[in-house]
């Protein structure tokens, strides 16, 4: 299932709406990394609210997305991780170190806006 990528001002928003296959995740990564430069975006938000399972491949891909986007000159925030998912991830050792996280889309946007203010 394709993940829609929406442009909202200087931010790209990708909302994952269902369980994703590995191929879908790779498509998402390619799409985001391409478009972040194409639209000259400063931030990317990946919303995982509706994911109730996060395996090691998914969390590694999210981390790669964040790192690649930083190399392409923008910031990434992962938002909407469910409490149960967070607990399971931590127990598996998938802690998404050095990736920004936020409670939900609103918080993620607030975080990025704060970030833009300080960099400009």
């Amino acid at each position, binding site marked *: 299932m394709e993940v829609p990528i929406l442009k909202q001002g200087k931010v790209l928003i990708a909302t994952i709406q269902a369980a994703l296959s590995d191929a879908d995740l790779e498509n998402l990564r390619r799409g985001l990394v391409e478009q972040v430069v194409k639209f000259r975006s400063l931030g990317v938000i990946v919303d995982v609210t509706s994911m109730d399972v996060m395996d090691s491949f998914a969390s590694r891909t999210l981390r790669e997305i964040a790192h690649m986007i930083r190399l392409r000159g923008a910031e990434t925030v992962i938002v909407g*991780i469910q*409490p149960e998912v*967070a*607990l399971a991830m931590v127990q598996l050792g998938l802690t998404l170190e050095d990736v920004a996280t936020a409670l939900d889309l609103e*918080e993620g946007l607030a975080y990025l806006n704060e970030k833009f203010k300080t960099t400009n």
Partner: protein
Amino acid sequence: MSKRTQVFTQVLYPDFPLLRALFVSDIPYVALEAGPTKCADLAWRELMAKRDTPATNLSGEPQSELLRELVAHLRQNRTQLREEWVQRITETRLLTAMTKEEIFAEATSVYDSYVEALETETFEALQAYARNLSERIIPRGVETHEVVGIVLLLRDVLARSLFAKYQTDFKKLNRILDAYEPAANRIANTVAVGFVQERERVIRQQQEAIRELSTPVLQVRERLLILPIIGVIDPQRARQLTEQLLRGIRTNRAKVVVIDITGVAAMDATVANNLVQTVEASRLLGATVIVTGLSPEIAQTLVTIGVDLGKMNTVGDLQGGIEQAERLVGYKVIPATETR
């Protein structure tokens, strides 16, 4: 003293259950020693008969008949037996938490339920009564040994009265006791189990209550939570704490959480790891965690398990933690004197 009289002395000895054991298992041994000539009386013949015939064929009349007779006897002597029982309870200093009148009232009900259980051979009513009784007396501090004690006393009192009644007819006595004892044992069992189950239920309920109370997640400012932890943390409680905190973060949309562990003296490596996991999981939800009030022992444990201190944000005391948290959320506390 001949073996025969010795047997009789034992028979007449008041502690009845013990005596039954002698009867069934020891008599043949005594017989070999004593020889049939010395014991050529009624008792001896009865004993041999008992030994030689299987227990089922022993009773001329069916078991239920015997039980009915037994129940009739217990009904007839209700007042006297009940009083004797209450007196024995008082003598043995059981149920000291209750007044004499209360003991008498309860004894009456127990006696009636007891006889009824014997009569109907159904234990549901007794079970319900035992549960009800336990509910009433457990809060008053009645102990398990007391409840078991009074039921065994009743069993003893009744057995003695049966013995007194049938001592001339040995065969009958044996059959009556064959009918009485399994039922009496079952009754004692039912009451004791009922009591213990009720106690366990109360304990479970209290544990539940303590567990609920022990992990409050409190909001002190908009988007700032504190989680004071007091007492010993076992892995189960640690897990519950984590779940409750994560849920709290979501529902309160918290940005910063202060976990205060001043009230925790020590924790083992498992629980310390759990704490670290809680911090990391909270970060995945977008909240920053500040841990305050680490005791030297806990600091030692955390260093021993090798915590990445970059992930753990710690402040000495709760006040400092709240101050830092307020800064993170964007509050600034100004003394009232300065605003004027």
